[in-house]
């Protein structure tokens, strides 16, 4: 039989975008920011262990404190250099949330323009304080985005965080999580494991997330 085997079309990988929205205000100084920096390195290391996740996961990083700053535009994990984050000033969380929402919509448009398929984006917010800017509108936009299933929003509070405000940013189905101590490493390994599940996830349904061993759900 002389029939050859089917040849494959080259399609761009499906993308699995995640925005890290990180509090770098003054109160994070010292051990918290050091542990956060270590956690970011662990995140990269862990995602890279999975070949599918390495191709699909795209990470962007926005910090707030003293100002809102795009520390890292979307890159695949191999291009992601875990930064040494520095801290200072107040906590413009509201502005950061608004920035993240706009930034994400732009990214989606880029995907669409290039015929790239994508999983529902994740926005992962970490803070140890409370916003010192107006945040209610931003909170409402975030809740709406989640309710319309445009993204999945996770709020993580480090000791000192105003969990009540975080609750008002989150939807009731996904309440904020209080980090155990400064166990950022465990948290980022969980995030990586979740991203692996999502990105290898059968195209076709929501995936069950791994158990959170790193924090407590506050409800």
């Amino acid at each position, binding site marked *: 039989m002389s029939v050859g085997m*089917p040849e*494959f079309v080259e399609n761009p990988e499906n993308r699995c975008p995640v925005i890290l929205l990180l509090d770098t205000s003054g109160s994070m100084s010292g051990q918290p920011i050091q542990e956060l920096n270590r956690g970011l390195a662990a995140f990269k290391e862990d995602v890279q262990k999975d070949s599918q996740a390495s191709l699909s996961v795209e990470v962007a990083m926005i910090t707030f404190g003293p100002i809102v700053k795009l520390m890292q535009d979307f890159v695949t994990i191999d291009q992601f250099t875990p930064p040494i984050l520095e801290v200072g000033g107040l906590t413009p969380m509201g502005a950061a949330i608004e920035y993240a929402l706009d930034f994400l919509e732009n990214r989606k448009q880029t995907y669409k323009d290039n015929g790239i398929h994508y999983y529902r984006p994740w926005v992962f917010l970490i803070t140890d304080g409370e916003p010192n800017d107006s945040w209610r509108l931003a909170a409402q936009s975030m809740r709406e985005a989640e309710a319309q299933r445009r993204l999945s929003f996770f709020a993580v509070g480090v000791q000192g965080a105003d969990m009540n405000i975080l609750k008002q940013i989150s939807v009731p189905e996904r309440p904020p999580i209080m980090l155990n101590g400064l166990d950022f490493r465990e948290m980022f390994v969980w995030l990586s494991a979740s991203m692996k599940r999502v990105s290898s996830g059968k195209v076709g349904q929501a*995936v069950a997330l791994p158990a959170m061993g790193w924090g407590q759900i506050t409800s």
Partner: protein
Amino acid sequence: MNWKAVARSAIGTSHQKQGIVCQDYGDYRILDDVIVGAVADGAGSAKHSDVGSRLAVETVLKCFSDISEYPQKQDSQPLSKEEAQKVFAEIVNKVITELQKQADEGDYSVNDLACTLLVFVATPDWVAAMQIGDGFIVMRSQESEYQLLFQPDKGEFVNETTFITSTNAVNEMQVEVIPEKQEFICASTDGLEKVAIRLSDWKPFSPFFKPLEEYLHEPVNPKEDKYLTEFLNSERLNSRTDDDKTLLLCLFDRE
């Protein structure tokens, strides 16, 4: 002069690693000069979706076999789209009933049987087809290019689709009637989508389908032959998709 067909499924490497069985299923029946084919992809998150996909496909095929007067009655006149819609809606409801029965017997939720479903009925002169959820049906009529029948049903994001157990399944069902002779029909689950379809404009990739069509022209009995199984289990394919994959191929042999 008749239909020649073959259906094969192979487990995806991710399911193999997790010790899960293959959740895809595909089969066909040839009733005189009419072929009915169905493929289903069990939802990864549903506990018994391998049972669901198999039961869905078998129920569809049984339904069509039961309508024994069907081929004669329709003669060579194609169904209208409305008629096709009605026939498929009835069959989908029958499938849902069977799934519910199965779930009741096993004392679990019908959602544990969630699967996609793609069905086609082809006479020598026309084809009617439906699709709930993702996956694809590609066909080719004489002297023309491969054609994708439905754009896969996806939400904004890749990890969203409809299943036959979804409450909106019948409404989300896509139906099409092609009032033309088809030479080749391929129905598949979404495991092969990214190697077979150019996703930027949803064009079937002909170097993928052409060898499959040529294969059916070979004087081999596809039931006993290993070509498809070898392809579906090949390293080369598994390096591109870790999902279960199914191919249901048919050729109308006019010689």
